[in-house]
């Protein structure tokens, strides 16, 4: 009898299998258009949305079977009045099903960002196959040109943008990895501002043909990182210049590396701090809010163009100079952002959630977050001086012109 029962079970499963062989969610790999980079724009006057998809051409990117250079990606452009219409229009254009799980990066235009990305982000978060951990870029170049250029070396533009972030965060400290869509989404309901990377197209013209892979000149028509876009909630409200980005990230405590170029004895000395430790605390000092930031770094000398020998005193000087310079520039940056009323570090929220009588007093007195003072203290010591101790002294006095 036991066997009989088992038999029935197997039969039932079999029947069920036969009844339901539709396999609704099944997609063969060669029925998919693998989306790689997506660019969005919206005309402020007409409200028309334009979306560019870069679709991978797998045969050109996969392990080569020879046969010359082919286009690694194809760019499709769709224009529509609403987000949902975009979907139907995409279906009109694409011969394969759009596979959006593997988007590497997303680009929006500056004008779109300034109108607010609300609808885009909401639509994005609702999709089951979205990944909110992809990087969001804002571009100030025309989107069509950005999307219609082939990039050398890392031939998939989406991945190339992604590696810009990885490299910047690892080598220069001008970006951190937390510039993903989800970081923007998280701040959509708070007063804290978000900074997203900006890119622009270098050179005069894009390179929309594979001819470019045969030219040695790589700069022309390449995407470069050009600064930061400051978002309040979902709307872009301003730009951060490239040279302030590293101060922003170090004050935010997200830098993986921090580089500073110092001038000592009229000569350049470059130092770099790997993983600076940053401690931040909000305090109330004599009724005024003070934001205390302690930075402690271990420096390594990357470049030393000084003529004199490297002595302990000299090192002390470098450390001292580093402190001064960082203090000055970071404070400058902070003041500037306060004066623009940019709450880059979420101070407003911090103050709002402080408990205690003194804080309540302070709030009653109507002292707003933008009265917060920055109290920066920097500790640094040079631990790594590089392969050489003393620099080679050449003939000239450092001015290469003669």
């Amino acid at each position, binding site marked *: 009898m036991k066997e009989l*029962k088992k038999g029935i079970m197997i039969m039932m499963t079999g029947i069920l299998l036969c009844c339901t062989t539709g396999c609704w969610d099944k997609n063969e790999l060669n029925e998919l258009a693998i989306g790689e980079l997506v660019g969005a724009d919206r005309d402020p006057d007409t409200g028309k949305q334009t979306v560019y998809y870069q679709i991978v051409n797998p045969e050109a990117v996969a392990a080569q079977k020879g046969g010359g250079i082919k286009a690694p990606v194809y760019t499709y452009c769709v224009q529509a009045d609403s987000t949902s219409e975009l979907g139907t229009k995409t279906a009109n254009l694409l011969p394969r099903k759009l596979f959006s799980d593997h988007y590497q990066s997303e680009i929006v235009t500056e004008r779109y960002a300034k109108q607010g990305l609300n609808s885009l982000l909401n639509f994005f978060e609702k999709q089951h196959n979205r990944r909110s951990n992809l990087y969001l870029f804002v571009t100030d170049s025309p989107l069509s040109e950005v999307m219609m250029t082939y990039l050398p070396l890392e031939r998939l533009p989406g991945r190339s943008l992604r590696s810009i972030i990885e490299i910047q965060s690892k080598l220069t400290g001008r970006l951190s990895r937390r510039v993903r869509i989800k970081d923007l989404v998280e701040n959509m309901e708070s007063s804290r501002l978000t900074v997203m990377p900006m890119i622009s197209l270098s050179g005069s013209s894009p390179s929309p043909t594979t001819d470019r892979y045969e030219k040695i000149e790589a700069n022309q028509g390449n995407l470069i990182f050009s600064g930061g876009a400051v978002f309040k909630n979902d709307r872009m409200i301003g730009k951060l210049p490239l040279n302030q980005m590293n101060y922003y990230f170090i004050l935010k405590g997200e830098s993986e590396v921090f580089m500073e170029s110092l001038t000592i004895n009229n000569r350049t000395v470059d130092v770099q701090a790997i993983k600076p430790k940053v401690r931040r605390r909000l305090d109330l000092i004599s009724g005024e809010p003070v934001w205390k930031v302690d930075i402690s770094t271990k420096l390594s000398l990357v470049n030393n163009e000084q003529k004199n020998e490297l002595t302990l005193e000299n090192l002390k000087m470098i450390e001292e100079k580093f402190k001064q310079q960082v203090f000055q520039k970071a404070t400058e940056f902070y003041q500037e952002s306060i004066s623009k009323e940019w709450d880059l570090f979420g101070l407003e929220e911090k103050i709002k959630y402080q408990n205690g009588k003194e804080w309540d007093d302070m709030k009653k007195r109507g002292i707003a977050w933008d009265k917060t003072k920055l109290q920066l203290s920097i500790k640094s010591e040079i631990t790594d001086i590089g392969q050489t101790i003393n620099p080679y002294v050449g003939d000239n006095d450092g001015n290469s012109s003669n």
Partner: protein
Amino acid sequence: METARISTWQFFILALGYLLGTSFFFRIGGLISIAKQDAWMIPLWSGIAGVLLVLIWIKLANYYPGNTIIQICIQVAGKGFGGFIALLYIGYFVHLSALITRNLGDFMKINLMPRTPIVVFHVMFLLVICYAVTKGVETISRSTEFLFPLVTVTFLLIFFIALSEWNWDRFQGMFHMNIWTTMKETRSLIGFPFMEAFVLMMLFPYVKSKNRIKVSFILANVVTALLLSLGVFFTIGVLGVTRASHETYSLFVIVQEMHIGTFFEHLESTIALILLIVIFIKLSISYYCAVSGLCQLFQVNNRSWLSISLILLVSGLSLGFDNILENIVFNREYYFEYMLLFAVIFPLLFLFLTWMKKGKEKRKVVGSQA
């Protein structure tokens, strides 16, 4: 009644899997959206309530050793009224099975396979469950014991990988809630999972050492409360309050966005599988209770035919719910009151009746002696 025996450890794992399994997936987001940064405290007090409830159930069960809740119904309240209450209980088990099945279907449909008709998930899964239930409680507990380490290890893995997203700033604004309104809003957490655990009273007679049920059951409750709290804490730290309260499945989103290097990135299907395993544990228990409750009420010896026939009913009922929002609302607004009937009112009624009977007997004894 089958002559199965399960060890205390197995009972503990069953209880833990039953209590923690699905609530870990479905509860966290809702709690955070209500209590914001303080959500991690809610499981703690709910856990205390859970422990108190366990004490009531154990007290009741101790009066009737070797009997399940269905049998207690009949013994206490007689064939007519008791049978009716037992039928209500069985109805609840079926309803619960349908709810859990629907949870699974919704999850799969929303996150992984949006085109597949939801009923396919239900029926396929119910077939597996039906097989497990036919094989009996020993098989269920052994499978649970086998699968449990797998689930634990995966959770730990997720936990450690996702910690790279941790940010203490997300806890800003802790201790700002209004305790009473929050308690009222989150009372459903006591309903699911803690009150639901009375279902395990159906398994009491099979546990080998009777006097250790209490300890392991309470321990399971405590561990559930702690881990739920930890889960909420973790979700806040990793995902943030804003996003956690907007997402339907916050744990799923965490896994969706975690990555190991740039190579392994989109691992959400794996977490879905873990969810399937915990749903398996929970559903097999509730389904088993429905089937064996029917068997006990109508004194049928063999579970297999009944469990096959219930597939149709449960899959039909689970299709009856409109969408996940409706379930969430039902859960938030009504579930606590609904569960109150089965988990508190009936057991207390039984306890009361038992005391009455005992008193009467005592008086009789005293009277006859006098």
